[in-house]
């Protein structure tokens, strides 16, 4: 069967991965099959096609992602049962079309950081800096979080710069900007449609957001208990975000949130490492990406 070669690049880091994957699909006539990750910041794009095309795509992808970060894989003649084991269908299927709500996209920007606090600060900075829409806020494994935004290229560029600036004070950052992402790539990346943003939290006017990120559940428990008892704040969300890192989020009046985060940090840091932040006026887009707001009380 012609076109049965399989290739992939496996890249350490979501931002370099996007650049590599985009370059792969643009370099040669290959059909993207899936994006997969074994659980840390290693992302792979699998393609199939003629062996020559696959080889070219993989080489270009590795070069675009950075040879020190990307692992090429080309299997010219996959062994019996390999394709089925990996979940490829034997006949090349038409790639699913990009979702309708993505028709107005031009560019995609991605920022990868370590830790929920860095991710939240970056997201808030990005959506406040320019007219962009967040489409991904995801913990991709171990300590890394990824935030992606979309919009016009100028806006995305400004947003990514702002996100990087906000995050790099607290964490290592990788970022990238895809000016014209390949249409076959987008449906594979699992972007969520921008939720209708609702500036109210619990029906009240926009509240502040406090995030207490602790290393370990014991510290989180002590910190959350102290927060809830020290001021009138409402816990809204709890994220597992890394190698034993957990983030509790609370909302309330800015004074209450600040006091609560202070008390929580003090209690939690007796047990383990702590990171925290208070966002006095979180943007609605940030809240909706975090799943806060709407009818939550």
């Amino acid at each position: 069967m012609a076109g049965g070669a399989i290739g992939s690049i496996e890249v350490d880091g979501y931002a370099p991965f996007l650049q590599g994957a985009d370059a792969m699909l643009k370099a040669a006539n290959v059909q993207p099959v899936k994006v997969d990750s074994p659980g840390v910041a290693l992302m792979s794009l699998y393609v199939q096609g003629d062996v020559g095309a696959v080889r070219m795509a993989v080489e270009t992808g590795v070069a675009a992602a950075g040879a020190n970060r990307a692992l090429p894989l080309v299997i010219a003649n996959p062994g019996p049962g390999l394709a089925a084991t990996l979940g490829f269908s034997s006949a090349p299927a038409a790639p699913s079309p990009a979702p309708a709500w993505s028709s107005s996209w031009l560019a995609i920007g991605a920022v990868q950081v370590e830790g929920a606090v860095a991710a939240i600060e970056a997201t808030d900075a990005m959506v406040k800096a320019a007219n962009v829409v967040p489409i991904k806020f995801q913990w991709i494994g171990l300590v890394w979080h990824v935030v992606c935004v979309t919009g016009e290229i100028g806006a995305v560029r400004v947003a990514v710069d702002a996100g990087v600036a906000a995050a790099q004070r607290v964490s290592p950052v990788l970022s990238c900007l895809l000016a014209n992402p390949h249409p076959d790539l987008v449906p594979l990346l699992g972007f969520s449609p921008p939720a209708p943003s609702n500036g109210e939290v619990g029906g009240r006017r926009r509240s502040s957001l406090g995030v207490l990120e602790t290393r370990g559940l014991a510290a989180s428990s002590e910190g959350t208990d102290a927060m809830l008892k020290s001021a009138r704040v409402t816990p809204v969300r709890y994220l597992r975000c890394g190698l034993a890192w957990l983030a509790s989020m609370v909302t309330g009046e800015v004074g209450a949130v600040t006091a609560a985060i202070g008390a929580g940090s003090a209690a939690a840091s007796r047990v383990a490492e702590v990171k925290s932040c208070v966002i006095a006026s979180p943007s609605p887009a940030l809240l909706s990406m975090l799943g806060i707001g709407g009818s939550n009380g």
Partner: protein
Amino acid sequence: MTMRSIGLVEANSYGAVVAALDAMLKAANVEMVKYDMVGGVWAAVFIAGDIGAVQAAVEAGLAVAQQLGQARGSVVANPTPEYLELYDL
């Protein structure tokens, strides 16, 4: 139920967490609530009971777990309802 105290022991090994649970159940009159996977290789177990029992149990559990790896514990004497909801206890 809202007057019960909550205790937890977390360790960097599931085996240690179960061994700690065993020690906690034997040390005092507490009830196991649930396990939780914290992330990476850390795991935890929550117990509930009277404050004295929970404190004794967490001490015993930590003693066992710390021999088997790294471990930490926490005792919350009077958890607010929001706390219980946040951690789904």
